[in-house]
């Protein structure tokens, strides 16, 4: 497998558990282009996690194909396949008896990297995920907070620079404030690393925020819609999708755009509320509602006014 991002294809992928009625994943076909984040979202029983685990063969396919860079996963050696796919789970699953450094170095050690190379890599990864390479290296998982553990889990999955990452509700067990921060940092990382990512969540808001594309799975593991967040919100494929993304989908769509994307009118007068250009339209609307105003001033990172955005501009 190459180390650059890989294209991932589900081709009629099906999983039927013996002795159970109906499929867990039913003829799932979708393509995740290299370097994009595909979010699998849906109600429980939709087969999201099953679909994810089919990829690294933690669960064997019943029929159909999954291909990484055009090659069916069944053709790879099982341990080679798993070592070249980053795997992050909700409960993290760090090895409690190993230090942060040893945890992150797991796959590189299995791949036979030199010790010195692993040390450098671990230090780089700790910086990348926002931990202290000196302080945190020697700590044990029991000494870390939930958020720190998930950062280590992410670093461990990235250690051998895999072309594909599987993330199963990675931020699901983390409190909302830290979750938002981890999501932001993950997206910042992804802009740099450009991995192909399959990301499972049951949270529509997280799916909209994180995904380049969203695959909505309904009960029985059937794909209801596979599209960009904008299109899922604007044109839900059916009643199920419309219901699932919520009645407030028009509001959710506002989270996808920022004030900086609007055409602004020149600044006239004073006393309008101010927001930075990278604020979402939803935050802007919330501010207007809270302040009972019709317009606000958009400012740049240094606080210099860029222009005025009216309520109609935001809602257009």
């Amino acid at each position, binding site marked *: 497998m190459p180390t650059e991002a890989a294209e991932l294809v589900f081709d009629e992928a099906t999983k039927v558990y013996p002795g159970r009625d109906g499929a867990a994943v039913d003829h799932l076909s979708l393509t995740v282009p290299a370097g994009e984040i595909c979010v699998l979202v849906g109600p429980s029983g939709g087969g999201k996690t099953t679909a994810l685990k089919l990829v690294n063969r*933690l669960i064997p396919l019943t029929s159909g194909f999954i291909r990484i860079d055009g090659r069916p996963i069944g053709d790879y050696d099982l341990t080679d396949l798993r070592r070249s796919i980053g795997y992050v*789970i909700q409960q993290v*699953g*760090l090895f409690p008896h190993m230090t942060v450094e040893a945890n992150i170095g797991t796959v590189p050690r*299995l791949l036979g990297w030199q010790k010195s190379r692993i040390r450098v890599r671990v230090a780089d990864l700790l910086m990348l995920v926002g931990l202290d390479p000196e302080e945190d290296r020697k700590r044990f998982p*029991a000494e870390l907070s939930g958020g720190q553990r998930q950062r280590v889990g992410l670093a*461990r999955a990235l250690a051998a620079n895999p072309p594909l990452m599987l993330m199963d509700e990675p931020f699901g067990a983390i409190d909302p404030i830290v979750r938002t921060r981890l999501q932001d940092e993950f997206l910042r990382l992804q802009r740099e690393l450009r991995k192909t990512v399959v990301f499972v969540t049951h949270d529509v808001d997280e799916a909209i925020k994180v995904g380049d594309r969203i695959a909505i799975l309904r009960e029985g593991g059937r794909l209801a819609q596979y599209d960009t967040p904008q299109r899922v919100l604007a044109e839900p494929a059916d009643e199920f999708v419309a219901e699932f993304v919520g009645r407030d989908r028009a509001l959710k769509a506002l989270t996808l755009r920022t004030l900086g994307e609007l055409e602004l009118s020149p600044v006239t007068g004073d006393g309008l509320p101010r927001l930075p250009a990278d604020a979402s339209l939803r935050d802007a609307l919330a501010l207007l509602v809270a302040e009972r105003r019709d317009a606000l001033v958009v400012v740049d990172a240094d606080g210099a006014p860029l222009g005025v955005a009216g309520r109609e501009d935001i809602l257009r």
Partner: protein
Amino acid sequence: MTGWRVADGGPVIPSFGHASQCLKENGWFCTDWIRDHWGDTLQPALVQHIELTLIAVAIGFAIAFLLALVGFRFRLLDPPLGAFTDFLYTLPSLALFQLLVPITGLTVTTIEVALVAFTLFVLYRNIVAGLRSVPAEVLESARGMGLTRTQTFLRVELPLAVPAIMAGLRIATVSTISIATVAAFVIHYGLGAPIFDALAEPDIFRTKLVAAGALAILLALGADALLTVLQRVLTPWNRLR
């Protein structure tokens, strides 16, 4: 059964002549006797006792470990193996020592066979429980990262079982030290020998009884402390919980 009692020395042998006042009054802790007989009675008994314990725990651990590997790998075999070690543990120790005499004779082997049998229960249970204690998410991430079955066992399951294994070793060692004293009732060996000798004297030889008993207790406490320290050294990660 009488020959050795005379040779062991004590207050009833008048030819030694200069017995202290403490000894004449059969005191509980006559330091002069302990000093005089450390080399010919207490020290050899202590060394024998340590040997008995080390050999029994080492062999017991080896057997229990192999059985535990089987019970861990093949779940169906765990209940019968557990029941077997449980059965051995249920046997009254003195009865087992005596039952073994017709087979292995009045030898140290008889003691060792019985002591080993008694260690298996706690060692087997603790090793299997330790190996099974690894959280599901830890095993899943190990599998997902491409650890083979053997790598998962050696790098994850076995190290995480160490606290339970060490706890089992502590209990097995301390109880072996205690059961081994009883063995001297059948075969004159270890720290039980001076204890039973002292009890067999007409008035009970108090100093000898107390000195040998105290040594057995100190040995048990010392072994426990040593293994506790060893466990802490082996599992630095476990202290933080």
